[in-house]
């Protein structure tokens, strides 16, 4: 009589993601964001094909030209095509945003989960360590790390990722502290669940919501931090374009050619907004309690 149970059960496993997807689809803002993010990633991947000029090609006879058919967004002080540089810049900026956040969130969640779950002296040790860590201004730490490792985009990403660790770590710990006291954690212990399983299966899914939003917010922050590093020569190395660098380059000519700062600025804004809205939608979609 119970035989047919297995089949629909197996189907259900797949449909768990289907469920999330179905809920996400209902959120228009999230879907538009997802579309934009996909677009941005495609642009980054196919930059060579899309961009009309190589990013480093200079033309001293045509500096600061206004937008035209030849140069859709004009050129910069060295006569490089702004549109092409924006497109190539997507690669660097997206890497900065996503890879750095992946580093900081992974380390942060691990540290935060350990501190929050085990509590007691483990918690004290980890949190006091983070206090010391955070007493160093984040950007200073970032600069120091990047300088130690040598100026390159890769090192800038690692430096940003590492210096951002305390934010997700603290958030994870706080969130876990409240979930840890729930009776279902005791229930899990009573059925012999190991600590790792309790953390991964029972605590993190219930504690992750606030983190999803803050993580997507941090993507924007990371892009900007990357720009700051580039500004002092520790990030993307010229002539490699990167949105933040482009803004800081345009800073000198802001009064006469403000649009040069505007284009990458708008790109950063759209990217950040898209990630935020997607994160928002994802948080709601991941919560079965909001299923309707």
């Amino acid at each position: 009589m119970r035989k047919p149970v297995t089949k629909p059960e197996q189907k259900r496993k797949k449909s768990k993601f289907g469920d999330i997807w179905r809920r996400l689809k209902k959120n228009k803002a999230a879907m538009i964001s997802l579309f934009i993010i996909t677009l941005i990633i495609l642009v980054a991947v196919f930059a060579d094909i899309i961009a009309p000029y190589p990013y480093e090609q200079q033309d001293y006879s045509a500096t600061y030209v206004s937008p035209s058919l030849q140069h859709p967004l004009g050129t910069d002080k060295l006569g490089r095509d702004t549109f092409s540089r924006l497109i190539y810049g997507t690669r660097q900026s997206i890497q900065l945003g996503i890879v750095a956040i992946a580093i900081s969130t992974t380390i942060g969640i691990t540290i935060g989960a350990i501190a929050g779950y085990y509590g007691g002296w483990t918690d004290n040790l980890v949190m006091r360590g983070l206090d010391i860590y955070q007493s160093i201004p984040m950007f200073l730490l970032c600069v120091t790390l990047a300088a130690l490792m040598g100026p390159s985009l890769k090192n800038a990403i690692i430096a940003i990722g590492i210096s951002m660790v305390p934010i997700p770590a603290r958030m994870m710990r706080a969130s876990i502290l409240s979930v840890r006291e729930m009776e279902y954690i005791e229930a899990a212990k009573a059925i012999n669940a190991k600590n790792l399983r309790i953390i991964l299966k029972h605590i993190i899914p219930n504690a992750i919501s606030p983190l999803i939003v803050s993580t997507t917010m941090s993507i924007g922050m990371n892009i900007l931090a990357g720009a700051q590093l580039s500004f002092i020569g520790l990030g993307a190395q010229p002539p490699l374009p990167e949105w933040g660098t482009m803004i800081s380059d345009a800073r000198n000519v802001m009064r006469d050619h403000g649009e040069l700062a505007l284009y990458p600025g708008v790109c950063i804004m759209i990217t950040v907004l898209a990630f935020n809205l997607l994160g928002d939608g994802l948080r709601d979609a991941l919560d079965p309690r909001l299923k309707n």
Partner: protein
Amino acid sequence: MPALLEVKHLKKYFKTGGGLLHAVDDITFTLEKGRTLGVVGESGCGKTTLGRIILHLLDLTDGQILFEGKDISNPSKKELVKAREQMQIIFQDPYSSLNPRMSVSETIMEPLILQGKLTKDEIMEETGNLMDIVGLAERFKNSYPHELDGGRRQRIGVARALALNPKFIVCDEPVSALDVSIQAQIINLMLDLQEERGLAYMFVTHDLSVVKYISDDIMVMYLGQMVEKAPSDELFSHPMHPYTQALLSAIPVPNIHNKKQRIIMQGELTSPINPKPGCRFMDRCRYASPECSEPQVLEEPLPNHFVACCKSNQKEEEEK
């Protein structure tokens, strides 16, 4: 054959800023297979803590726990895993005792997955069986706890506790968070399961009418100590400890012509932090006298009827 569960001089003290909090202080009892021990007492008397300690969700300070004659007071990891397959717990609040991100079937199969003895198909089958046993329709298996009412949620909790086929279940006020009509359903379910599987329950509650209905023996706790323990009928017909008497007088009687004398307790609950050696109920007791500040000894004035009160004999004589 040794008793299913033997608890000897169990103590649990918590360190607090103000001193040692005596949550459970020198509790001794035995529980046979298929029997139910009701544990009653007011909030904060340590009855929940007692259940948690037996399952090793909390460590004990002192004392001994024997399960089927085996000492599991300080178990190794292996022994603990084994012991917990025999002992389970049903929680008070069916809202916080279920992981909101896990569906009904996921919650119920979790213990089976963790046990790792069955194949995937067998686990699915067993999950279906368990849902059948506790009266959850199969259509709920993909539902999430928040979609179900309190009674159904508590059924999930019962199914989870049953999954490993334990011999002993701690029921930590399993019905106090439910509506009265649903309380009866869950209690009857538990009684049926007891009959079918020979389960032993330790039924922690503050609801006296429930405990009378379900228990074979009743233990009354006051500030971490056992003040009286007797077979259910005996305790209700012939309570000896003044605290038990006061408790029983508080049960509402649905009969306006037969109003009974209510014993109103005076004073406040004494603090469980660094208690004095004497009777802990002394400050609220109407029979209190200087002898009560001596440590109280648990006596057995009638067979199987234990009471820790130096006055219990005298009072009886007065009554006669």
